[in-house]
């Protein structure tokens, strides 16, 4: 059996401390989710780097394509009025 079939790839996400979201840290091979979690603990949190771990089968992730990044993200590019700096406010108004 190939490694890919016997121990597929999992993406690992770690919450480094309470109050923060999980961040992608890397990947690893494991036969099932439980082993993936244990391996992730050993590989990615040897120095208390995390308080919570997610493992996700790599094959289940849907990603946007870098090829169409221009058209895909274009709609946000010409809308400067979505930023507070777009608006000029009289100087005497503070804290707005």
């Amino acid at each position, binding site marked *: *059996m*190939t*490694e*890919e*079939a*016997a*121990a597929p*790839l999992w*993406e690992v996400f770690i919450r480094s401390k309470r109050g923060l979201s999980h961040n*992608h840290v*890397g*990947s*690893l*091979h494991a*036969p*099932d989710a439980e*082993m993936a979690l244990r391996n992730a603990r*050993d*590989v990615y949190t*040897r*120095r208390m780097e995390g308080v919570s771990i997610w493992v996700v089968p*790599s*094959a289940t*992730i*849907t*990603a*946007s*394509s*870098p*090829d*169409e990044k221009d058209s895909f993200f274009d709609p946000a590019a010409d809308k400067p009025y979505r930023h507070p700096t777009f608006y000029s406010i009289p100087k005497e108004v503070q804290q707005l």
Partner: protein
Amino acid sequence: MRSNGPIERDLAGSAVSGGDAGGAVGDAREAEFQALIEADQRIEPRDWMPDAYRKTLIRQIAQHAHSEIIGMQPEGNWITRAPSLRRKAILMAKVQDEAGHGLYLYCAAETLGVDRSELIDLLHQGRQKYSSIFNYPTLTYADVGAIGWLVDGAAITNQIPLCRCSFGPYARAMVRVCKEESFHQRQGFELLYALSHGTPEQHEMAQDAVNRWWWPSLEMLGPPDTESTHSAQSMAWGIKRFSNDELRQRFVDMVAPQAVVLDLVPPDPALRWNEERGHYDFGPCDFEELRRVVSGDGPCNRQRAAHHLKAHEDGAWVRAAAAAYAAKHAASAAA
């Protein structure tokens, strides 16, 4: 349109692969890639990249990963014979870190579209290499100190600039590795310091270890710039930031004054501070020896390769059992 598949992996057969995209589209992609490199931006796995860039990275990252894994052997050799519980706990933690470094790096290599098992096969077939340094034997416990101080020290010198490597996953792996390496070098220095300030016999042991590890550590930073085959292109691609000779000078400048504190003498009569250059001068490395060791004729090459193969084969039943267990539970969960 979206493509299904792993976020950090190049998708086999997707439009992103290969430097063979001809014509205007190919030129535009090449230009975009170059622009990213010149702007000191990172290339990510699913970006278009030239085939040669991908191949160079796979070769370099795999070689780096293999080095971390094979590098567990010379020190692992001493775990059962550590002189105290404290030293044993430290050495186990260090060797375990090296396993982790290997895994971070295989993970980075896999984002380029290869499978870890392929890389391990190539290692077993002798078609991919690992660092020359791990083909030297560890004769006494002082070698654990010399390896930490000199070998990990040289590795850090090489790895710090790699944290800014143009390929994102490799650079990120290096950030993790470098954070962990500083403990490796310090524990080695501390061990040597304890020995060199102990009994005359202990001092002698520390000096002997430094005598044996000094030159191989300088040589592991690679052939001289005049002979280095891959350097120029790797510099242009932002994979390599400093030449081998620059890294070697940096390394000597770092460890030469530390040797004085250790009260140990590096085995190089030419080693002295050069006021004019603002660097230490040092004698010539034996690059003929480096070539011999890299091409398979070092003191422990066969032993290291055989041990890795044996460990891999001995572990086959564990992998098979875990896979069978996972398959059984997946089946019963589906039923």
